[in-house]
């Protein structure tokens, strides 16, 4: 094409200088850096708290339990300290990492699928559904059933929301949001009703802590549930980068790029719901991670998903580990639910992002 006056196709100059291509193009280093940061986060976070532990102690305990202590020539840890690392802190930190990673990935997927910057993993009423399930078994005193009830509640909410959205017609982004809102409100009302009707003084705190989200009770079972869910479903979701890219300019554009829009939307929504359900069953619904992290990471990577998805997962993991570390140390010996910490950090950060005019909304 001949050059034209409106936009001389010469050497890159002028307008191009106003962005930060360096940050965008330096992308190859973000992932390894985030992996290193996460490993360091986990090791350091386990040492923080009452009882003096060092990173070396943590390494010794982990190596011992993996049967590598002898090979690496590390001194075995005292039973008490080892129990503290292996039975209490490590499961908790790893659960926080898995939950943070999963929520961040789900947040990216939901925001892209609905083209709604305010979307988060709980959009389809998942957290309200899970809360209803959890509160029902808590007031019934069947605490052992809590994870199962929460998961069932989340999946029930998903089915209700998708049925509702589908009943209105094709599942468009707006219908997804509206159906999720309806299911959310209904489940929240039912939850409040159950609490007012039957909760006793003792169960209040337990219920409130669950509703705010917490990984305080995490065990190796929690690690297994959240870890496997994140590895399996999170990897599937995180590999959908090209497909999510195709949605950037809307459903029609995606279809014109050869994406089976309806099928993809269903699959990804179900994937998000199952993963979120698994996370919620172990930690309750922790807010803001799945909402803020995607926006923050997008500022580094741009809107393409291939880097955004895995980087969000890694940053979400580190973020929630630190948030939980704050939750258990700031008011020590008392603990606050980590959901309060993420909200306390997330809300101002969100406001800041908005204020900086990043066109989030």
């Amino acid at each position, binding site marked *: *094409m*001949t*050059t*034209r006056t*409106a*936009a*001389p*196709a*010469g050497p*890159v*100059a*002028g*307008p*191009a200088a*106003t*962005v930060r*291509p360096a940050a*965008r193009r330096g992308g190859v280093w973000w992932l390894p850096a985030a992996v290193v940061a996460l490993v360091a986060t986990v090791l350091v976070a386990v040492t923080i708290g009452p009882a003096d532990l060092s990173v070396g102690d943590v390494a010794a305990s982990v190596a011992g339990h993996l049967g590598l202590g002898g090979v690496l020539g590390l001194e075995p840890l005292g039973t008490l300290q080892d129990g503290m690392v292996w039975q209490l802190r490590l499961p908790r930190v790893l659960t926080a990492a898995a939950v943070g990673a999963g929520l961040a990935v789900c947040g990216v997927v939901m925001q892209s699928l609905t*083209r709604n*910057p305010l979307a988060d993993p709980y959009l389809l009423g998942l957290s309200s559904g899970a809360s209803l399930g959890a509160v029902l078994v808590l007031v019934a005193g069947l605490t052992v059933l809590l994870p199962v009830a929460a998961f069932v509640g989340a999946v029930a909410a998903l089915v209700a929301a998708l049925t509702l959205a589908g009943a209105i017609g094709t599942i468009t982004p707006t219908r997804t949001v509206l159906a999720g809102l309806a299911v959310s409100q209904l489940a929240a009302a039912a939850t409040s009703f159950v609490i007012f009707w039957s909760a006793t003084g003792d169960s209040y705190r337990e219920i409130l802590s669950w509703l705010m989200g917490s990984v305080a009770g995490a065990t190796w079972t929690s690690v297994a549930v959240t870890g496997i869910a994140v590895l399996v479903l999170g990897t599937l979701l995180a*590999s*959908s980068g*090209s*497909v999510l*890219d*195709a949605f*950037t*300019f*809307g459903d*029609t*554009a995606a*279809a*014109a*790029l*050869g*994406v*089976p829009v309806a099928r993809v939307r269903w699959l990804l929504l179900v994937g998000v719901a199952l993963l979120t359900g698994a996370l919620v069953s172990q930690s309750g619904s922790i807010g803001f991670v799945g909402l803020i992290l995607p926006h923050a990471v*997008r*500022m580094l990577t*741009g*809107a*393409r998903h*291939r880097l955004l998805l895995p980087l969000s997962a890694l940053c979400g993991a580190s973020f929630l580990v630190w948030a939980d570390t704050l939750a258990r140390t700031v008011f020590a010996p008392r603990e606050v639910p980590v959901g309060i910490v993420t909200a306390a950090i997330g809300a101002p950060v969100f406001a800041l992002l908005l204020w900086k005019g*990043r*066109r*989030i909304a």
Partner: protein
Amino acid sequence: MTTTATGARTATTGTTPGPRGLDAERVSWSVGGRLILDGVDATAPAGAVSGLLGPNGSGKSTLLRVLAGVQPPSDAGARVAFDDADLLGLGRRKRARVLALVEQEASTDLPLTVLDAVLLGRIPHRSLLAGDSDADRAVAHRALATVGMTAFAEREVTTLSGGERQRVHMARALAQEPALILLDEPTNHLDVAAQLDALRTLRALAEDGVTVLAALHDLNLAAQTCDHVVLLSEGRVVAAGDVRDVLVPDVLDPVYGVRTEVLTHPRTGRPVLSFELPG
């Protein structure tokens, strides 16, 4: 004019069998019991710019979406052929390698650079797990050069003017290396220079052998640019053929409810239209 970014075929002229362009027959589409397209037959010859004309609500956008395979036709009798290939029967990804659609108002709030937006056009050409290859980037840069947006590659799409954004969408379509490109009112919201510029790009593509079908509502722009036009009214084709045969008072007046006068441009010899309300 250097080569464009498209997988262009050489335009063949004369009667030898060659690319025939787009040929759609009996295309219907209805929603909620209302027939929006009623058995539309439309053609767009290979290597030419064809215009899809009609008043607001006549079904231009709907027809383009059905032709693009985004909405299936509601009648099984529909046939959409392109160079003898059955477009409707083609798999989605294969179809996206043959035809590209430029929508009327595609926007995003996301911090996407122009180059990244254009690279989206490569999605149908590679595995869904693959990232951008050097070849993909080369195609994207060529597409940007074709629309004169090279200098904007690292700008964010949200910071562009309407005309610049339109060119980015065209570049994204070109990155698909289509042999057929469908555009919905590509000159909407553009100033005169940008309109002419967009249409010049389309003509250049057509000269490279790409089949171009553009919905236009400005009849004078169509008269200046198009070789072949299809005129829709209330979901039916009222007239189709050479611009000089379709853009005449007898055809236009009943469709638009105006009185048309056709002049001839002194230099190009193309029709120039002037309208007034009847009575």
